Every structure is written in C-alpha cells, then in structure tokens.
C-alpha cells in the first residue's frame, strides 16, 4: 500500500483533514448566484474574495478543492464584468431620460 493511510481505512480523507473546504463551495455558489439571479456586484466581489481565501486554504493544507475556488473566482469576475457593462449601458439611458423632457419642452410643441 502506498499513499496516505487514513485512520478510517476509507479511500477518502475524513472531513476534518480539510476543514475549510466550505470556502471553495461558497465562492462557487456566490459566482453561480451572481449570474443566475443577476445581482452582479453584491455576489461577484464576495465570490472573488472568498475564492482567494479558498486558494489560500488549499495552499495551507486546510482544503483540497482548488477547482471549485477557481470556478468561483472566474464566475465572480464574469459577474463583475457584466455589472460594469450594465452600468456603462445604463448611464446613457439615464442621461437620455433626463434630457428627453427638456428636448420636448424646448421643441416648441407647446405640450
């Protein structure tokens, strides 16, 4: 037998070997929620922050799910990017909304 020997004899390490695997899951869940529910910044930024903490936990041996953390970070950045695009798209609409009433009033139609 090679490889690590776990006390339970199970091929998988018990949960207490990796007590911070929740961080990667939280990151992925926040990333998914950001895209599914459309709350871009509120979940995108935490997804990246928690995902980075999950990566650190993996490096410190407290977690073994770097894939989930990477997925969460990527989805988080996609959420943030979509949020930036949405804000940039809304700004002209707001300006238009402010400007249009004036355009009509100065158009000389007399209301």
């Amino acid at each position, binding site marked *: 037998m090679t490889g690590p020997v776990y006390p339970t004899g199970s091929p998988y390490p018990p949960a207490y070997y990796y007590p911070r*695997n*929740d*961080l990667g*899951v939280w990151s*992925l*869940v926040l990333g998914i*929620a950001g895209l599914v529910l459309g*709350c871009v910044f509120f979940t995108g930024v935490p997804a990246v922050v928690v995902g980075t903490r999950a990566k650190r936990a*993996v490096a410190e*041996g407290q977690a073994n799910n770097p894939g989930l953390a990477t997925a969460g970070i990527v989805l988080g950045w996609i959420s943030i990017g979509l949020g930036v695009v949405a804000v940039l798209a809304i700004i002209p609409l707001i300006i238009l909304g402010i400007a249009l009433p004036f355009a009509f009033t100065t158009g000389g139609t007399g209301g």
Partner: protein
Amino acid sequence: MNVLSVRTDLGAQTGRAPREDRRQRPGPRPRDAGRIDRLRGPLVLGGLVAVATVYVALVDPNRPGHYLACPIYLLTGHYCAGCGALRATHDLAHGDLAGAWAMNPLWVLVVPLLVVAWLRWSARAWRGPAAAIRAPAAPRAVWVPWVALVVTIGFTLLRNVPVLAPWLAP
C-alpha cells in the same frame, strides 16, 4: 484563521509559514497584545452594519427618492431575493416583526443567522489562536452554501408566482 496548520503533515505541503506563529508563545498566560488586532475585523464590520442600520431606520425606504431603485426590478419587473430587504430592515429596526415578514420573510430568517455568525467570529477573535488549538473548531459544513443557493433561487422563483405573491412578494 490558521489554527489548524499544525496538521499540515497530513495535508498538502506548503512553504508558507503560519501567519500567527508569533502569537503562539509558550508560557503562563502571556499578555495578549494581539487581541485588539484580531478584534479589528469584527468591530469594523459591526460598526459599518450598525451605521447602515441606523440610517435605514431613520430614512424610511417606503418613501420614494431616498434610495436607488433596484435595476433588476426596473428592467425586468420581477422581484429578486433581496427585494424588500431595506424595508424589512427598517421595520425590524422599529420592532415591527410582522411588517418585516410581509416585506421579505427570507431576510427576516437570515438576519439572526448573520448575527450569530458575527458573534461566533467575534468570540473566536477574542479567544485567539491558542484557544483554538486547544479546542479546534469543527470543520465547516460544505452543504450549507449549496442549501443557501437552492433556497435563494427557489425563493426568487416562488415570490414571483402570482398565487404565492401575497405571502412572499414585498
């Protein structure tokens, strides 16, 4: 919290030294100079949340013009999971549990969980890494985030069903 780094011989190896080594001095009850450092996170977050809550309590979100309108509601006309959370917070701050429940029942259920999580975080920060090594915390449950995701998405869907709107919509 890097309190479990003593177990790295069992997990992946790393060149990173545990960050809180310098606080794990032996000796009978050393003066805990790091306590202020450790409590800074909980205190800053708690202070920000307290200020925001007082603002929401004083400035009524039921009256228009004080807060930004939700872009999701403006664009789609649908309620997201957070719709009514500001009004519910306002009601909770005024002790109106029924009003808060009518605005956003999920938020009313989540707020106590957040308070408990903040209290546990503060307690761990108060006790410090030495206490955490003597009595390590249980591993964090991995199913909690998945349940949170399913509940949030389910709540979002259900509160937009017209039949359920009287109970779930703001």
